[in-house]
């Protein structure tokens, strides 16, 4: 009886401890979300004191908006390539670093370096590289597509942004995978060696299951980065040429601050929120139960 009472007091204390966090979360996250949804039902221009509630008219218009559909296609394609690129490169790098090569610490620092740079700076540096250096490389290797600035090419500009993005985005996943690899118990590999397993079998049956939680995390991080890509597009192509690299993030910004259609822009961002929420839910369901717990 006495014990039960104590337990309840603990629960109360736990609850009280979470209150400041809950308060901040509600104030800084939940309230804006609700307000944002409200504004998406209006025709507010972002300045005016007066606006009309238009119901779901913004959403209806969005469904027919070909420019917005184009940005959704671009963003999804971009995100898929970003995730594949980041996972493959950072996992490979982590495996190499984990194989006790000489100067491992040095290379760890080198690969982590891009993470400390500001996104805008990286974007502007790459913009200059594509403008001044890459055409020279294209001429030297005799590849016609690279001989002019790739950012001027509607089909290639996306890869210009991706390359810069992957270069910086790989740093933290590499570290995460490296830490994940360190978590795999060495005796499992020894046992597998005794059983005569090949290197691929060891990777497939031992390493991979241990890395599943890391995969989930890297996947969600890159998914979020990819779907909300903004800084790189803005600093490298500005959405051009001809809107070929306009992402959902940049079109939201442009609708709100250039066209001054805040209601419509919030509707766009609600759609982006729904896309991220649905994909994250599916991803969490799919990987649940597949990971190994030590």
């Amino acid at each position, binding site marked *: 009886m006495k014990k039960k009472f104590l337990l309840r007091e603990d629960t109360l204390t736990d609850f009280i401890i979470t209150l400041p966090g809950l308060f901040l979360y509600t104030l800084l996250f939940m309230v804006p979300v609700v307000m944002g949804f409200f504004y998406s039902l209006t025709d507010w221009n972002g300045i005016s004191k007066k606006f009309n509630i238009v119901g779901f008219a913004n959403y209806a218009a969005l469904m027919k908006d070909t420019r917005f559909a184009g940005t959704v296609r671009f963003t999804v394609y971009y995100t898929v390539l970003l995730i594949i690129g980041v996972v493959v490169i950072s996992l490979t790098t982590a495996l190499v670093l984990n194989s006790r090569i000489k100067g491992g610490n040095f290379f760890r620092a080198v690969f982590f370096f891009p993470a400390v740079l500001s996104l805008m700076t990286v974007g502007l540096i790459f913009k200059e590289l594509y403008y001044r250096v890459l055409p020279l490389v294209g001429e030297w290797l005799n590849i016609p597509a690279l001989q002019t600035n790739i950012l001027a090419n509607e089909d290639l500009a996306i890869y210009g942004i991706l390359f810069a993005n992957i270069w910086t985005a790989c740093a933290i996943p590499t570290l995460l995978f490296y830490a994940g690899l360190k978590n795999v118990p060495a005796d499992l590999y020894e046992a597998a060696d005794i059983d005569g397993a090949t290197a691929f079998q060891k990777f497939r049956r031992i390493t991979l299951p241990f890395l599943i939680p890391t995969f989930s995390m890297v996947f969600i991080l890159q998914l979020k980065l990819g779907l909300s890509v903004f800084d790189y597009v803005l600093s490298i192509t500005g959405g*051009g040429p001809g809107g070929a690299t306009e992402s959902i993030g940049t079109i939201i910004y442009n609708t709100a601050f250039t066209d001054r259609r805040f209601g419509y822009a919030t509707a766009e961002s609600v759609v982006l929120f729904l896309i991220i929420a649905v994909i994250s839910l599916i991803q969490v369901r799919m990987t649940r139960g597949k990971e190994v717990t030590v």
Partner: protein
Amino acid sequence: MKRFLALILCVALCLSLAACGSGSSASGGGSSTGTQEGTVSGEIEILLHKVEINEIMNTMIAEFNKEYPDVKVVLNAPGDTSTVLQARAVANDMPDIVTFTYNNSDLAYVRDGFYLDLTDQAFMQNVTDSALESNKIDGKNYYLPYISNAYGVYYNVDIFEANDIAIPTTLDELYAACEKLQAAGITPIAFSDQELWTLGHLGDRLMGLIFDDDGTLFEEIAAGEASATEHEGMREVAEIYLKLHEYGQPDSLGVGYEQAISAFANGEAAMMLQGTWLLSLVKSANPEMNVDVFPLPGRTADETRVGINMDLGFAVSESSENQEAALAFLSWMSDPENAQMFADMEGSTSLIKGVEVATPEFAKMSELISAGKSFVIPRGYWAPSMVNELQNALQRLVSSKDVDQFLQEIDEGVKVAYAQS
């Protein structure tokens, strides 16, 4: 970036709170003592969008304070004025004086009643008639028009002389000059087609130059009475646009503003099509450069007119508690003597009567403007997001070189832009 912006917003808010706090007590005193000069008091805040004239404005304020010692003027030039102004408007905390004018989406501030109607103020008599007329919004003046920018062709005098090229006075002569430069292995024109706004600037200046657009075309397209595909002037603008781009860099779509400026300033390209604001940037990129400007020619020398636009204007906030002090400041600024002092420091064309500006590079354009050969750039007549639609269509035009597709896109863009407004 975000954090930086937040910091600026905080500072701006603090400043304005301070302004309101001391202002309310002072304005009470001001109204009881009447409106005589010298007795005006209070604190006013100016939100300035032209960061580059910050120093000049501070000098002007110091001079103003010699005559009005009781008015405290706080100058606030945060950089990202559009966003700051929007936040201030939403928070119901407008600065007393706002200069931001170059973005036509700011018509919204006027139409939502944020600014005072200045039409009947005595000091508006100091402004040139054409500037007053061309800056009317719904028949009234909400800004004190102060200086104007103009759009022209910047050229490298040394390259022109070395290749024996005279200043072109018609479009055909401009093309011929470009041919000559191209034959000599020099890129004739540096474009910055990655930067959407630079595409839009050339586009709407050409629309004004070729068919004197005053907004009717787009209005008629929106009403279903016309179409860009059948409009000869619009087609000609698109053709000229492409023709000029034949003389640009092959990959101009990937070139940013700074990159184009550095190419021009370092002699890699002979010309650049830009507004008066470019001069100081070119000079800081290469102080030794021998640069001059000629007006963007029309089809004939007689048709050549300069596209102008108000670059700096002052509006007074409707909700300002120190309107008297704010109006006194505007009145003082518009005094020809003070406007001359400003012009001597700043160098742009003044919109105040009797002010002479002597920037040698702009002499050829000023000559045309004072001969009445100028037009107000058409974007001010359009629906707010039309500029954006035009810019994007122009960028695709440069990429696809397909005039028909461009004109169709304009038709579609107009319908989108005008449906919203």
